[in-house]
């Protein structure tokens, strides 16, 4: 049973690491960073060198595919709702050509106080990841070691890997 922590009136999942520790572990494992803007990652994105901000998750995934063709080790930061947009691209590019990649997904909607538009995704995210057939790693469970684990699976074994980050695992107050 996970013990939640309080920030103001709201409950959050435990903080896993500082933004500095998280970005240091990420830059050690990856060399291409991309995101679709998400406030959960707002403190982390400026700490990732050259982070590419794309307007849609499917396009970001396609950019990561191109980057990987040229030898990069990409990681993408997206909100769980973006999984609804990227499935066809994932199947038609990474899966079809056997190209590994890593997605870090903010798991919005798990906590009761979250806004109503996130709650359905909170219920469906894990189910969706299973449908997409990605390897699933949990930031809260593995800590910052998760990035090296994900990179090994993606770039040594050409797997598609998702790192799930729960609300509060990252510092969102910055």
């Amino acid at each position, binding site marked *: 049973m996970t013990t939640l922590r309080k920030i103001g009136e709201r409950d959050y999942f435990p903080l896993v690491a500082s933004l500095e520790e998280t970005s240091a572990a990420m830059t050690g494992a990856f060399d291409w960073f991309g995101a679709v803007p998400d406030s959960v990652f707002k403190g982390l994105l400026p700490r990732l060198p050259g982070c590419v901000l794309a307007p849609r998750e499917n396009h970001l995934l396609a950019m990561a595919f191109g980057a990987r063709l*040229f030898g990069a080790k990409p990681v993408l930061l997206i909100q769980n709702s973006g999984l609804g947009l990227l499935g066809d691209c994932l199947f038609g590019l990474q899966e079809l050509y056997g190209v590994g990649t890593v997605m870090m997904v903010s798991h919005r909607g798990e906590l009761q106080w979250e806004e109503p538009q996130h709650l359905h995704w909170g219920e469906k995210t894990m189910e969706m990841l299973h449908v997409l057939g990605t390897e699933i790693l949990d930031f809260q469970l593995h800590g910052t070691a998760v990035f090296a684990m994900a990179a090994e699976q993606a770039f040594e074994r050409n797997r598609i890997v998702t790192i799930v980050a729960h609300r509060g695992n990252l510092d969102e107050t910055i």
Partner: protein
Amino acid sequence: MKRSEAIIEIVARHGDAAIVFSNGLTSREAAHVADRPGNFYLLHGMGEALSVGIGMAMTAPHIPVVVVDGDGNLAMGMAALTMMPVPNLTYYVLDNGNYETTGGQSFPRPIMDAPWINRVEIEPGTINAPLPPVPDHIMNKFRQWLGAEHPNLV
């Protein structure tokens, strides 16, 4: 001009580039009439050819990258246009006014215009090229080209 003729001209113009072709008839005809190791044929990923090219070009700014898209694919991937221009990326759109791969459904005209969109008007119709190669073949051939031309990226 036919699609196949436009593709032959574009490939001849960019002999040292990595060239990404959008899925459907563009990839199919390119693989048939203008195949070369630096070509990468999308078999699916509708609307994503430009994004793949952007990812390549941003990763290796010293390598010329070309994307050959159809007008229908441009529409499907329109949000990616906000990422353009990218200095080492040349973007062609083969414009025949319809979604030809899926049966010739008409496409609203004119297509979006920008200084970095190289619009090439082509006639409707196809040369009935065979299906393009399978994914493993496409990947292996492209990686061999990359290894020979840009070994630091492999």
